C-alpha cells in the first residue's frame, strides 16, 4: 500500500493550459505539503495544509491553487501554465510534532 500517492506521475502540456495534480495519503497524518523541485534539484516548499486549513503559503504565483477536501487529500491546480512551471512536484505528509516528511513519488510536469 503506497503511503503517499500522487497522480499523474507525468504530465506534458502546452503553455496556457490548466492542469491538476492529486495527492492522497493513508498514513493518518494531519499535515500535507506541496514542494517544487526544479531542474537543479532544489526543493522549495509551496503550500501546507493542516486538517484542511492552509498554514503555509510561500511566495507562489496565484495561478497555483491548492485544495484540501479532507486531511487525507491535497490537490494542486495550476492555471495558465508557463514554461517556468516545468518541474517535479512532490506531495508530502507529516505528523506535526515531528516535522518528518513522507514523500510521494513526484509528478513531473513538462510545459511546452
Amino acid at each position, binding site marked *: 500500500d503506497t503511503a503517499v500517492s500522487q497522480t499523474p506521475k507525468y504530465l506534458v502540456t502546452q503553455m496556457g493550459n490548466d492542469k491538476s495534480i492529486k495527492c492522497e495519503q493513508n498514513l493518518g497524518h494531519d499535515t500535507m*505539503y506541496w514542494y517544487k523541485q526544479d531542474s537543479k*534539484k532544489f526543493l522549495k*516548499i509551496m503550500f501546507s495544509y493542516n486538517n484542511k486549513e492552509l498554514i*503555509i503559503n510561500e511566495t507562489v504565483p496565484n495561478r497555483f491553487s491548492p485544495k484540501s477536501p479532507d486531511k487525507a487529500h491535497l490537490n494542486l491546480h495550476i492555471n495558465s501554465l508557463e514554461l517556468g512551471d516545468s518541474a517535479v512536484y512532490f506531495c508530502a505528509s507529516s505528523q506535526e510534532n*515531528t*516535522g*518528518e516528511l513522507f514523500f510521494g513519488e513526484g509528478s513531473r510536469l513538462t510545459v511546452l
Partner: protein
Amino acid sequence: AQSVSQHNHHVILSEAASLELGCNYSYGGTVNLFWYVQYPGQHLQLLLKYFSGDPLVKGIKGFEAEFIKSKFSFNLRKPSVQWSDTAEYFCAVNARISGGYNKLIFGAGTRLAVHP
C-alpha cells in the same frame, strides 16, 4: 531567516572510499535535523534524523550523522560507499512557524556519484 547550506554540490568517489557531506544550518531555536536521499528517478526517502539525545545518529544503509550544536552542523558520513549509494542527498532543518506548525527547509542538495 532559517537556511540550510550544503557545501559540496557534486562529489565523485570510488567504491569503498569514505564519505562526508557537510551541512550547516541557520536557526536560533530548537532544531530537528534530517538527511534525505533521492535515488535517480525516485522520490525522497529518509536516511536519518536527529531530534534530541545522542548527537551521533545512525541511519539506514550504514549512514550516520553527527549534530554539533556549537558549529550548527549536521554532517553525513559513511565509512565505505557503494555504487548503489549514487544519489542526491538533502540536508533539512525543521523550523517552527506561527501556530506551532513546522516547515522543513532543505539544502540545495549534494549529488554523489560512486564509480565501481
